[in-house]
């Protein structure tokens, strides 16, 4: 098979918050940067975030996610990043080539450095009826409703009370769906108080210590059987959609294919490529950032992307050690701020433990 082969200084895979910020830092240092994403729009999962972000102004607090995505993508284009959309990276070979499936055909590109910013995928659990149409990831429901303006169902049961479960429940209400309840097998709500308050104000009940027994229906979901964790009572909810907000796993296939060493950290979503504080993997010229480097928040992904972009630019000879060091110090300070809260400390400890592995 003779495929066209291109060269590039830096290829960034994934145009979410991490990939966009990595590209920005690199291109501003003068690196010829190609940003690949399989979607037809840049922004990754920021696109479906219609709530206002909190945190610092630096991370777009007060802005809605899709506004941040549009701004970052605009800055990238303006700064000269070559943004290639509808381009799926099929493989990352040991020789360092990436195989790309693009509208114009399949080609290979051999860059001097790569940032893997592929994000995450939603987790699932198996239960009777889990494959019925109408059972879907909460993120899928969020995509349908917030990006495409289509309700995933009229009556929805949400499984999982983390931030994703709470936020998507609220967003389904905003779009006109009925959310009959949020269940969680844990004995306390996983997400932030502020998100819980919003759904509680709308009268959505939260059933803790409860789990899914079965999704039922012919052809698609018509009801969901839920039981209390002790195995006592069971309830049947008449719904046409069951959303699963059970957490995310890093998308690590490309890193694994390239031979990056993997580590396992439960707090960060499972298997992820080993990396240091500068987002370098154990393969020369291969960086990782964002959820692909462990599940955290979008603002953390942006900073990790910056870290990877800065270090890549330095390794490519376009940033001096001193300049890169100063930039990294600023990023490090912001990362510490982001991970300083009660939800961040576990993640921070897990991250630090990886660097020493």
């Amino acid at each position, binding site marked *: 098979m003779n495929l066209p082969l291109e060269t590039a200084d830096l290829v960034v895979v994934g145009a979410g918050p991490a990939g966009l910020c990595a590209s920005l830092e690199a291109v501003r240092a003068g690196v010829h940067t190609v940003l690949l994403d399989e979607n037809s729009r840049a922004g990754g999962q920021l696109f479906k975030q219609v709530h206002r972000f909190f945190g610092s102004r630096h991370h777009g607090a007060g802005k*809605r996610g899709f506004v941040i995505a549009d701004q970052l993508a605009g800055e990238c284009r303006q700064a000269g990043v070559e943004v290639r959309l509808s381009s799926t990276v099929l493989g990352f070979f040991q020789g360092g080539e990436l195989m790309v499936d693009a509208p114009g055909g399949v080609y290979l590109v051999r860059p001097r450095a790569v940032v893997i910013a592929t994000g995450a995928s939603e987790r699932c659990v198996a239960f009777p009826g889990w494959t019925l*149409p109408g*059972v879907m*990831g909460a993120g899928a429901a969020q995509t349908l409703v917030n990006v*495409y303006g289509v309700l*995933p*169902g009229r009556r929805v049961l949400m499984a999982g009370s983390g931030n994703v479960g709470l936020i998507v429940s609220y967003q389904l209400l905003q779009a006109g769906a009925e959310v009959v309840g949020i269940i969680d097998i844990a004995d306390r709500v996983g997400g932030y108080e502020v998100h819980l308050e919003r759904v509680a104000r709308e009268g959505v009940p939260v059933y803790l210590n409860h789990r899914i027994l079965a999704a039922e229906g012919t*052809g*698609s979901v018509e009801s969901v059987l839920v039981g209390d964790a002790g195995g006592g009572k069971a309830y049947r909810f008449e719904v046409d959609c069951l959303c699963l907000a059970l957490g995310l796993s890093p998308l690590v296939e490309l890193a694994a294919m390239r031979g990056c060493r993997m580590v396992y950290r439960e707090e960060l979503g499972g298997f992820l490529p080993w990396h240091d504080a500068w987002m370098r993997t154990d393969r020369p010229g291969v960086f990782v950032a964002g959820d692909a480097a462990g599940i955290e928040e979008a603002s953390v992904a942006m900073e990790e992307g910056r870290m990877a972009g800065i270090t890549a630019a330095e390794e490519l000879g376009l940033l001096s050690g001193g300049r890169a060091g100063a930039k990294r110090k600023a990023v490090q300070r912001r990362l510490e701020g982001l991970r300083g809260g009660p939800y961040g400390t576990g993640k921070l400890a897990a991250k630090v433990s990886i660097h020493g592995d």
Partner: protein
Amino acid sequence: MNLRVGRHAVLGEMEAGRPVTIYVDGEPVPAREGEPVAAALYAVGIRTTRYSPRSGEPRGPFCMIGRCTECAMTVDGVPNVRTCLTAVRDGMEVETPGRKKP
């Protein structure tokens, strides 16, 4: 069935492409140009995008971001197309893999 949101409390009028028609297993389905095929199907209540070749059970979109491949259908004769990442074009012909012919 119409599951389109129309006017959204936060987003206002949901912007949508020009109304077009696609054909699903030969039946005309209204859709909006540029939206993913899977979203167009969901909007009219079509949730089954394929049937398991092993069990014959229906499957529907799970992730909507191109990972799960549950929405892979035959589009304009090309098999295994992820319909959550494939934009609607006027006159597109979509077939449900594994569907028993009536």
